[in-house]
């Protein structure tokens, strides 16, 4: 357990709901759930969730902190927004799922090998580097995220698609070096840094 995680446990003791309300994106909506389950039933990845959203909300209220934060469930979110538009209480469920995932990551207790977690981090790192996404590097990093051997296997499997894209002019090897970028990279990075600092300060940083 990371220090920040221990700090949070310390700070909120038995009240995980309060911790979520204070630290998770849109977390103060959790209490408004009335357990109808329409979100759980609406999710395209539903069958793969150990705990669907409405159950996660109940678990939060029941103080099941570890089970929630280490869950792979919210990483299954495809951001299809079915749950949001159908929720009779207008809970921003998609955002709460993202928020829980992010919070778990912040605490360092997220499920490490979860592929979407890895991809999501890659995506952020990729865009944060130049301000724009470099699709080629994103793909390369993705395929090799589980190590070289695994990566080659995956890459071979995806080669057909890659060639297709190349042929159709929708992927360029030029992106390997340089590639698209914002011009004001310095300003961009400073902005991101500032935003991260502000958020860290606001979200109760126990460190």
């Amino acid at each position, binding site marked *: 357990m990371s220090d920040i995680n221990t700090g949070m446990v310390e700070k909120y003791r038995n009240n995980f709901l309060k911790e979520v309300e204070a630290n998770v994106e849109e977390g103060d909506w959790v209490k408004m759930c009335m357990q109808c*389950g329409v979100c759980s039933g609406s999710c395209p990845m539903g069958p793969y969730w150990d705990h669907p959203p409405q*159950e996660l909300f109940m678990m939060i209220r029941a103080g099941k902190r570890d089970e929630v934060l280490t869950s792979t469930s919210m990483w299954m979110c495809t951001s299809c927004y*079915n749950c949001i538009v159908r929720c009779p209480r207008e809970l921003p469920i998609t955002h709460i799922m993202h928020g829980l995932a992010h919070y778990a990551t912040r605490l360092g207790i997220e499920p490490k090998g979860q592929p979407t977690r890895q991809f999501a981090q890659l995506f952020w790192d990729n865009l944060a580097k130049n301000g724009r996404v470099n699709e080629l590097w994103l793909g390369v990093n993705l395929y090799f995220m589980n190590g070289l051997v695994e990566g080659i296997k995956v890459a071979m499997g995806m080669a057909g698609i890659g060639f297709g894209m190349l042929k159709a002019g929708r992927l360029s090897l030029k992106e390997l070096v340089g590639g698209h970028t914002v011009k004001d990279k310095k300003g961009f990075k400073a902005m991101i840094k500032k935003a991260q600092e502000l958020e860290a300060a606001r979200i109760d940083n126990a460190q």
Partner: protein
Amino acid sequence: MSDIVATNQTILVVGGGISGMTAALEAAEVGKQVIVIEKTPSVGGRVTRLYKYFPKLCFPTCGLEINQRRMAANKNITVLTMAEVTDLQGEAGNYTATVKVSPRYVNANCTACGACGDVVAAEFDDEFNYNMSKHKGAYLPHNMAMPKRYVLDPGIIGTDDAQKAKDACKYDAIDLDMQEETIQLKAGAVIWATGWRPYDANKIQPYGYDRIDNVITSVEFERLMDPFGPTGGKLVRPSDGKEAKNVAFIQCAGSRDINYLKHCSRICCMASLKQSTYVSEKYGDDADVSIYYIDIRAIDRFDNFYQKVQQDKNVTFIKSKVANIVENKANGNPVLNGVDTEGYHRYQNEHDLVVLAIGMEPSVDKDTFPIELKVNDEGFIEFDEVNGGVFAAGCSSDALDVNRAVQSATASALRAIQVVNKVAQAEGQ
């Protein structure tokens, strides 16, 4: 119409459903002059379209018979059908209502002998049956219609049918020249009893009411049970007339949902519990009913009825707001997707027929009342001083079951009487 006597001591009842009838009767039976304004061609309102009442499973027309007899016997009550209040001015003890009366094309001579109906041909959507069937161009709204007088559909005016109907009538009861009339009525107090309407099921898009034939509403389901209804009392589904034995009821269809109606409509749980017995009534042990719910709101002694239905092994309760419905194109069955939240069980259930326990919304849109009233977000009239001598009765005041609506209407009658008694006192009568 000019012969209607209305004064500052008259009580105007807007709406002739069970609430309006009750309020009118209670006031008239203690000697008050009452005028009832009813939009449709007959009084009785929504309850006339119900097969049974919960929790007794008795028949609404039974009480209607009594109330209609009371009304017919009471000379203090004047009923204007096909009439609507378009404007209301004034204050407690002194109101003037503008009432638009649409032509019925049939006058009081009508004996309901039915000769006109026999000779006309064209048919029109029958709103009484939620447009699931047709009525003829000359028709009696339903078996117990009061006034027991035929109506000509405006659609036949100017056609041969109209003339045929007129020629068939031996009693000079058909007047094709009848025109819309606007009249003004004085009143000391007004009882607003315009009731409710089912929420527009088309708006609940995930349930595909507009796309899937075998998804219907609870009010439509009631009509299927009526031997004189669109299916002749057969419990069959719309797409292919197949017997509907495996029936799903979806609670909170429109209710308790900020996207649609944010209030709980109160009646729907009980209505579905009641309707589950219809399936058993028709198919006995072949009945297979599923009720998808958030909370079963069988409040107070209605819970006894809930407990009784729970004992029925052919009825299953699933705590779940159904996520969406798709159609199995091979057999027309609606397929329900969702999660039973009691322990997380994902389901994909196919049924013969799906009944949406449709929510209740006030008949009058929030911003269209003819006079300023305290209306809450949900569109119901709250009891408030600013309403002056206008008193809400029944479902215009909240989502209520029949029993509570009648209770509310009885209360409204007293409030109206207080106003007109004060007028009488001031006028020294």
